[in-house]
């Protein structure tokens, strides 16, 4: 009798051990295919705005009368044959690095007021420059980084940016909005705009005209495409700016208005 029960318990224990070993083996096999590390969100501890305004009066043109000189003159060249390789400065102070598509490696530095291939550099924008020829304005934009493989700069009509576009905003108003985010949504509404299934910008769906936000110059149907030189292709970028608003002295907004880019610049003080 004792022998019988012993043999029963031994066989039961053996069976359970085999099942345990089998379960362990299976889980070890599964473990082989699973990652050993998780995912963590990496956020920079300090926010440094990409966009900074620079006063060129102390750096480049020290109150000297502007000398207009011709860098190169080939009046037959169309602006579509030009490439904008780089730019420095803003408004009517600064210079652009340009080249012809035919000789892309041969660049020329053109200051505001100077002439290149018959086109006078009139103004420096955030991501492009304004050339003038025969009283007509031509905008030459920087190469799109994503499309660097395929050629080049492209031209589009852009509303000229003037010094008047610089507005001042009080830090107090911003803090008011910061402490009460609901107020932002009461005063302004946004909707994401997609192109090729990617977020291209944020469209202003409504804006309260007499609110602090309304006074800043954003209009209904404006599409905010860039904030402080950061493309608005994600909510993340807009919120990062919002979270770090205390560390920012200038906000630059590029909006598409009536199919034209317009730059709005705000000094926070």
């Amino acid at each position, binding site marked *: 009798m004792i022998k019988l029960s012993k043999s029963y318990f031994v066989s039961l224990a053996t069976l359970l051990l085999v*099942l345990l070993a*089998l*379960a362990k083996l299976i*889980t070890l096999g599964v473990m082989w295919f*699973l990652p050993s590390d998780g995912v963590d969100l990496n956020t920079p501890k300090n926010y440094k705005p990409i966009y900074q305004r620079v006063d060129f009066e102390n750096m480049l043109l020290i109150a000297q009368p502007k000398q207009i000189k011709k860098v190169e003159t080939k009046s037959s060249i169309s602006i579509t044959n030009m490439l904008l390789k780089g730019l420095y400065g803003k408004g009517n102070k600064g210079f652009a690095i340009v080249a012809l598509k035919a000789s892309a490696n041969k660049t020329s530095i053109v200051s505001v007021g100077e002439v290149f291939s018959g086109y006078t550099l009139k103004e420096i924008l955030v991501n492009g420059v304004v050339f003038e020829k025969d009283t007509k304005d031509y905008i030459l934009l920087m190469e799109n980084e994503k499309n660097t493989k395929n050629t080049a700069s492209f031209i589009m009509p852009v509303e000229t940016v003037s010094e008047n576009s610089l507005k001042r905003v009080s830090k107090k108003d911003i803090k008011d909005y910061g402490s009460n985010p609901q107020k932002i949504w009461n005063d302004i509404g946004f909707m994401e705009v997609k192109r090729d299934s990617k977020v291209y910008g944020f469209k202003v769906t409504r804006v309260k005209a007499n609110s602090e936000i309304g006074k800043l110059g954003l209009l209904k149907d404006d599409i905010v495409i860039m904030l402080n030189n950061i493309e608005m292709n*994600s*909510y*993340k970028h807009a919120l990062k700016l919002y979270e770090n608003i205390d560390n920012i002295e200038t906000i630059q907004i590029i909006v598409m208005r009536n199919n034209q880019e317009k730059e709005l610049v705000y000094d926070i003080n």
Partner: protein
Amino acid sequence: MVKIFKFLGYVLFFLGALVFFMPKSSTYYYVEHELKKHKIIFSKEELVDNGLSLQVNNSSLSYDGIDVAEIKRMNVKIFGLYNSIKIEDIILTSFASSFLPIKIDSLELSYTIVNPLQVNAYASGEFGSAQAMLYVLDRNVSAVVVPSKLMLQKHQKTLSMMKKQKNGEYNYDKTF
């Protein structure tokens, strides 16, 4: 009959052993990597393997790089036949406070093999309470929200996105 019970006993024992030995942390990391593809990231969490369940403490939830919530405790039970995730003490970030009261006391998601095409959810907090169902095949979420006074007073805009019923409840229906 005895043999059938014996067999069922062995099967249960084997399943229990599988759950116990399952590499829960690694499975959690796998889920994290999958969620990352949808821009959802849990970070700063501590994992505790409790044998039959996995406890995730003090995690921070973000979507598309935006901090969304701080979660004190999350209990994940995967038994195969019945699976659940119970999340307690969720504090939404101040930005989300524009849409909801920031404290959610608990959120429980459950999935059972008896109803394989449906995920159930129940949540309660300062916003009131909500019962939701996710229909996997129809790719549809249907929720019934019973709003609190705070929700009714301060977050009408969020409620306006739902359909008000005669009994004061709000219905939310979305197909994705």
